[in-house]
C-alpha cells in the first residue's frame, strides 16, 4: 500500500469512528494502533504500548495543563469574577451598553487567571447576566456578550489550547503567551466596539448607568487584588526567568487557592468541586493526547506528514493562499469539533507543511508563533458560531428565557469583529510578534 492510500485508510476510518459517536480519543487510537501493527508488527505495537501512557502522562511540559485548569477552577469557585465585574463596571459602566462592555473587560481580566473559554463564559455569566437583566438589557445582547467574552479566556494567557499547540510543535510556551497578549487586547477592544455599534443603532437594547466617582472606582480596584497579584506573580516569574511555565502554573494554582481561602470564598466542599471539575477537563485532554500519540506514531512510521509537507510546497500555489485555505478548513472543523481536539488532531499533520511554506519571509520560530496565534483565534470562533458553539450552549443553560437562536443572532456583530481581527493578524504578523521581539 502506498502512502496516499495508507493515509486515506487511516483518516477515513478515524472519521468514520468519529461520525459514529466514538470518543475522539478512541477514534484516533484505534486506526493508529491498527496502522502501527500493519507497518511494524504486533511485537512492536505491544512494546510501544508498554511505555505509551507513562511517556505521555509524565511529560513534564504537559503538567502545565492540569495545573492551569486547577488554577482556573480555584478562580472560578473562588468568587473572583464578581470583584472583576464590579471593577470593570465602575470604569466603563456609564457608557451606553457599558455593562455589556464591562462583562467583556471582566472576561478578559478573568482570562488572565483562567485558560479555559467555557469556564470564563460560565463564571462571568453567573455574575453579569442577572445584573444585565436587572437593568433591562436585551436578552440577546446579554447572552451573546457572555458567550463571546468567554473566548477571551483562551486568547488572554494563560491559554490551554496554546499550551497544547506549544507542546505539539515544541515551541516556547512563554513566547506564545506573550504573542497572544496584544491580539487578546485587540479582541477585547473589538468586542467593545461591536457593542458600541449595536447599541448606537438600537439604544433601547441597553439602558445606561450613572457615572461612578473616583472613590467608588478605587474601592472596586482594591477588591481585585488577588487577580492582579496572581497574574503579576505568575507572568512576572515566567518572564523574569525565575521559573518555567509549569512552575508558574503551580504558583498560580497555589496563589488562587490561597486568595480564595483568605477571602473565605472556598470551603472543603468547594475545593472538592474544583478537583472534580479539573478531572473532567484534564482527563479528556490527556485521553485525546494518548489517542493522537498512537495515530501520530503510525503516521510517522509511514512518513506521511513529511511527504504531505513536500507535496504542499511543490504545488506551486501562493503560500499565503494555502494558509488562507487552511484557515477556512479550521473554521469548517469548528462546525463540529471542539477546539482542543481540532488542535491535537491537525497540528502534527499540518504544522510541517506550514513550516515548509514561505510566509511573509518569516523565520521558523516567528512563523510557528504567528501561526499558533492565528490558529488559536480561528478555532476560538468555533466556540460561538452554530451549530456547535459550545459557549452559546453553556450560556443558554444559564439563561433559559433567551432562546438559543436569539443568542446566535446576537453573536453576529462579534463574529464580524472576529473575522476582521483574523484578517488583520493574517496581514500583519507583527501584531503577535512585536512583544516577543521586544522581550527577547
Amino acid at each position, binding site marked *: 500500500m502506498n502512502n496516499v492510500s495508507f493515509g486515506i485508510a487511516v483518516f477515513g476510518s478515524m472519521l468514520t469512528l468519529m461520525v459514529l459517536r466514538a470518543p475522539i480519543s478512541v477514534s484516533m487510537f484505534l486506526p493508529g494502533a491498527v496502522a502501527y501493527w500493519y507497518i511494524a508488527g504486533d511485537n512492536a505495537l505491544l512494546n510501544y504500548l508498554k511505555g505509551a501512557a*507513562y511517556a505521555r502522562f509524565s511529560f513534564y511540559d504537559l503538567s502545565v495543563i492540569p495545573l492551569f485548569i486547577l488554577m482556573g477552577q480555584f478562580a472560578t469557585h473562588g468568587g473572583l469574577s464578581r470583584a472583576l465585574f464590579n471593577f470593570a463596571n465602575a470604569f466603563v459602566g456609564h457608557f451606553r451598553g457599558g455593562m455589556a462592555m464591562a462583562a467583556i473587560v471582566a472576561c478578559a481580566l478573568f482570562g488572565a487567571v483562567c485558560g479555559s473559554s467555557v469556564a470564563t463564559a460560565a463564571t462571568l455569566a453567573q455574575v453579569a447576566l442577572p445584573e444585565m437583566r436587572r437593568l433591562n438589557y436585551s436578552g440577546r445582547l446579554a447572552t451573546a456578550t457572555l458567550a463571546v467574552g468567554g473566548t477571551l479566556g483562551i486568547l488572554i494567557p494563560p491559554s490551554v489550547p496554546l499550551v497544547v499547540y506549544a507542546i505539539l510543535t515544541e515551541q516556547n510556551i512563554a513566547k506564545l503567551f506573550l504573542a497572544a497578549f496584544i491580539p487578546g487586547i485587540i479582541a477585547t477592544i473589538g468586542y467593545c466596539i461591536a457593542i458600541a455599534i449595536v447599541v448606537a443603532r438600537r439604544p433601547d437594547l441597553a439602558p445606561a448607568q450613572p457615572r461612578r466617582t473616583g472613590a467608588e472606582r478605587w474601592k472596586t480596584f482594591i477588591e481585585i487584588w488577588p487577580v492582579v497579584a496572581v497574574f503579576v506573580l505568575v507572568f512576572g516569574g515566567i518572564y523574569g526567568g525565575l521559573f518555567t511555565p509549569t512552575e508558574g502554573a503551580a504558583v498560580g494554582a497555589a496563589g488562587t487557592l490561597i486568595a480564595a481561602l483568605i477571602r473565605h470564598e472556598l470551603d472543603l466542599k468547594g475545593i472538592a468541586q474544583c478537583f472534580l471539575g479539573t478531572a473532567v477537563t484534564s482527563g479528556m485532554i490527556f485521553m485525546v493526547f494518548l489517542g493522537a500519540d498512537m495515530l501520530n506514531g503510525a503516521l510517522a512510521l509511514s512518513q506521511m506528514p513529511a511527504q504531505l509537507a513536500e507535496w504542499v510546497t511543490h504545488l506551486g500555489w501562493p503560500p499565503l493562499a494555502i494558509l488562507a485555505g487552511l484557515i477556512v478548513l479550521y473554521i469548517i472543523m469548528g462546525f463540529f469539533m471542539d477546539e482542543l481536539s481540532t488542535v491535537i488532531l491537525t497540528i502534527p499533520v499540518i504544522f510541517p507543511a506550514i513550516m515548509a511554506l514561505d510566509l511573509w519571509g518569516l523565520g521558523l520560530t516567528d512563523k510557528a508563533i504567528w501561526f499558533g496565534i492565528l490558529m488559536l483565534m480561528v478555532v476560538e470562533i468555533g466556540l460561538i458560531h452554530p451549530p456547535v458553539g459550545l459557549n452559546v450552549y453553556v450560556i443558554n443553560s444559564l439563561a433559559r428565557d433567551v432562546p438559543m437562536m436569539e443568542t446566535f443572532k446576537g453573536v453576529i456583530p462579534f463574529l464580524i469583529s472576529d473575522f476582521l481581527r483574523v484578517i488583520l493578524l493574517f496581514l500583519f504578523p507583527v501584531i503577535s510578534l512585536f512583544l516577543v521581539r521586544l522581550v527577547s
Partner: protein
Amino acid sequence: MSGAESEAASSPRSAPAQAIYVLAAGAALLGGALLSAIALMSVASIVPRSLGLQPIQGDFELVQVGLAICVTLLLPWCQLQGGNIIVDFFTTWMRKRWQRRLDALGSVLFAGVIALVAWRTGVGAASLKSAGETTMLLGFPLWIGYAAMTPGLALTSAAALYSAALAWDEARR
C-alpha cells in the same frame, strides 16, 4: 460535540454501579489532592531557588511521576461525567435510541482501549522492575510509577463499561 453520557450521568442504581461511582469520585479527589501537592512542592522548590538557596532535589522528577499517577486517577471520573467528548454533529437526525446504542458501542471501544493500555502498562512495570531502572536524580524505581498507574486505568475501563451499560439501558426505554 458533547459528552455522550451527559444526560445519563444521574445517580446510579445498582450496588456495583454505586461502587464505581464512589471509587471514581474518590480517585478524582485523590488526583486533585495529588495535583495540589505537586503545585505546593513546586512552590516550595522555587522559593529557596529564587533566593539562591538549595531547591528540592529532583523536583522535576517528582512532578513527572506524580503527574502520571495523577492523570490516571482523574480519568475514571472524566469518563463517568461524559468528559470524553464525541462528535454528535452528524447523528443529530437519528432517533435517540440509535444515538444511545452508538454511544454504548463507543464506550465499549473506549473500555477496550483503556484495558489494553492498562495491561501493557502493567507489563511495562514488570519489565522495568526486573531491569531495575530508576529515575536519574532521585534513583526512584521507575516501575513503581508504572505500577501505580494501573489501578486508575483499570477503574477507567470499568467506568466505561458501566457507561456503556447505562447507554444501552436508555436505548431500550
